[in-house]
């Protein structure tokens, strides 16, 4: 009983201490705070929050692209993007691309015109059908721009890298078959903000995948619109 009384008295006495216990960390923080009063400030370029915030928002994008460097086809892919921005810098994005629209290149036309028999392009080259990638997005740059004193806009710029699959149609023993191949992607993207939830999106990407006759690196240039959902907690 006596021991309990001692413990009680001790615990009670703690309440009469003049101040809560302040650790070494507080001391160090305060030292830094006071020292900073007479130092050159590390003022960032933007001293307030951004007008166009991507943090904790989903981004849905739809864009048209053009793949200019395939030997046999000019692709006009339709690209869908679903991204989530963890913060202003980092995000994840699911990219899906349908490569349904295409035209023959000059090379293809030339080969067909010079061929005595019916030339089947699909027997000499693969044909991309769709690709699905998961990429990590890094957006280090946020800025403003003006054009001919007309207006002022905001943009951000970032890079991304990731991997996924590309579905191709390729010749196999005289027949065509569809196969999925590993696909790596490196890209860069701009957002030109129009409204807090809408941005014009420009995209440039290089995909690298092993085709049936060697490694190919088709690149794509895309332009579309991004919609940002409200903040998701």
């Amino acid at each position, binding site marked *: 009983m006596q021991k309990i009384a001692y413990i009680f008295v001790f615990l009670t006495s703690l309440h009469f201490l003049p101040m809560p216990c302040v*650790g070494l*960390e*507080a001391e160090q923080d*305060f030292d830094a705070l006071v020292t900073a*009063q007479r130092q050159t400030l590390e003022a960032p370029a*933007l*001293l*307030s929050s951004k007008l166009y915030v991507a943090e904790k928002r989903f981004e849905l994008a739809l864009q048209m692209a053009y793949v200019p460097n395939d030997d046999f086809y000019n692709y006009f892919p339709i690209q869908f993007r679903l991204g989530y921005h963890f913060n202003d810098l980092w995000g994840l994005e699911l990219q899906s691309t349908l490569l349904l629209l295409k035209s023959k290149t000059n090379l293809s036309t030339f080969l067909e015109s010079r061929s005595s028999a019916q030339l089947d392009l699909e027997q000499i080259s693969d044909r991309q059908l769709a690709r699905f990638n998961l990429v990590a997005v890094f957006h280090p740059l946020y800025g403003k721009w*003006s054009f001919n004193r007309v207006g002022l806009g905001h943009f951000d710029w970032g890079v991304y890298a990731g991997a996924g699959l590309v579905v191709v149609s390729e010749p196999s023993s005289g027949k065509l078959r569809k196969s999925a191949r590993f696909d790596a992607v490196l890209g860069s993207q701009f957002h030109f903000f129009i409204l807090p939830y809408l941005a014009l999106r420009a995209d440039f990407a290089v995909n690298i995948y092993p085709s049936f006759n060697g490694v190919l690196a088709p690149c794509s240039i895309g332009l579309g619109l991004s919609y940002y959902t409200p903040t998701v907690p």
Partner: protein
Amino acid sequence: MKITITQLIRALLFAIALLAFSQTAAALTVNDIINMASQNIGEDAIVQIILLSEAMEALNDEDLQRLRSAGLGDKTIEAIKSKQGAGKAELATSSDEISESAKDNVLRSYSEEPSREMGGELEQTTLESSHVVVEEREVSVEESVEENADDSPKRANGSNLTELHSLESFGLVQVAKSGNLSVLLEKFYESAYQSFLIHAEVQAKYDKLQEEHKISVMGTELLPELQRLQKRIPNDPLHALAGALRIESEHNLEADSMAHALLDAIVGLAANRLGLHHVAAQRLERAMWFSQPVHHFDELFLAYQESAKVSAHVLTDAEKIQNRQNFISDKHASSFIYAIAYSYVYGPHKDEEAAFELLSKNLGEGINAAKALLLTASRRILPPRNQFKTAALELEQATSILKNRKGDEAFQLLNIANLSLARIMHENSAHEQAHAFYGMLSPRSHHFKRARLEDAWTLYFGGRYPEAIAATQVFYIPDWEKDYVPELHIIEAAALLKLCQYDAATAALGRFKAKYLGSLQALQRFLASTKATDYVQQLLAFTRDSAATPLDSRMFSAILQDSRFYHAYMKSMHMRKEAETCRSLETRNTALKSLCDAYAADFTLAKSALEESIAVALDAVKAEILALDITATELSIEIQLALRAEQERCLQLTAQGMSCEVAKSVPEQPFFITENIQYWKFNSEFWRDELLSYYSRVPSLCSASAVKP
């Protein structure tokens, strides 16, 4: 060949030392001979010394090789061989003759040495008067040597010449070469002491010389020990510091003795290396007080500068240090002069005229020149001088130096110079120029906020009311909104009142009352509930959790901004850290106990000063808010009177059959950002490069009371 008096004296003294040595020489070693050769003693003289010695150890092949590589020839080797096994009796017969010969050789070798005198009439006179005395001493030494030849004490261990040689590193020999007789005599004394040949007569002669040249010999016997400690500073500063403190506690040394100066230098340099800057700055200043030149004076000053910067130490005796101006090298002369001038202005013995005189010297085009200009300008503008024009010219000169320099110090100084110029212009009602100079402050400068506020006042007094309002826009940066800036809303209200924006002015006063009268109440609660000894703890607690204390964020900001608090805290912080360092060092060496106890006591004092500074800062905040509240009330009355006048005018118009409507304030103040001639609306983003470019279009409603027929 020209032989100067100094060289003659030097040669004589060395000859005396040689004579003294010759009478006590025990068996010579090969090392001794090599040491002699390394000191440029001629081979003939070495041969004579060998012949004077009692005996030589047998030479082996290795010894022969070493002697050859030391530049010694057959003559020396033959002399050594002839002495191997020889006894003392042989020496005694020819000592007088040989010593004369040795003296001649030494004299010749010294007289060939290039002259390194500093010159000057005063020094020459001193040397001449000393010459006579030294000649007298020469005779006395020889006589005394003869008298004491048989019972001279022998060295316990080691070699005399090795000890003499080691003096090179101690700095004495180097100083001797610079021609300072006083230090040369110290060297002689030490040489004599180490060879155990101190005779009463020599001592008396020396005392006489010492009296003439005001040199203290106290502690000379400690010099070898101190020398050893000094050598340990770079690798083992703790040992050096502890050793020096131990010697200090055991001996009561005279203030201007070499030993005392060296002791201070060791403590200072070692403490500097260990990060004990508070004690280092004090000791290094004392070390620099020593009236004789020492070869490491630059090192002392540079270490002092470093420690003084950390511990905010100001020279306590600027005059004494100023007298050592000739000791510093040209490379560091400008820093040295600036440090002295600074202490004349801010030190305990103020003498601004002396500071001005010092700073009028050409300090080159370096950063010290700019600092000197800033220092003088800062004093010129104060009463009774009020030399604004000269100060402005000096500041402009400083800015032109600083613009071409890189680095943080130059950046900070440039901002201070621009701020000072702006203030001078403001004080002299040159509002346009003041505004231009305020605009030169970088947003990265810690003076930026203050400059924006002062710029707002300048614009207000210059009648540019919308721009005065625009200048306050930066204080709405989210991170700055909790800063203590009570004048902000007063400027807004005053400017809006001038624009007859009565509602907006009233709203600005409302913001002042809401923010600062609320803070004042919090402050009063804080003062009532907190003991002065808990202030620091409260500040620390607020840093971690602002809700944990009765402190208000603006009060916290006010304390941080207070200059007295800043200096008191920095001092206390460094003292605390150094006291901790000292305690941790004490665990490794208990000799530091007294030093650490002193640190603990100083820290307690610094803490008390800090608590006092917080109390003073809080009182100042309280007084300022109350004063501004009175101003706010006055503005409020002016607004009411102006509104009443508007209403009366309106009533008169109504009575004349016209309708009248008092114009309303613009509800939101439109801010525009301008860069060159581009304008765009402020859109809530605060970009660093736009902070100086805000422009407001708040219209004046003074002539806009709409009168409708």
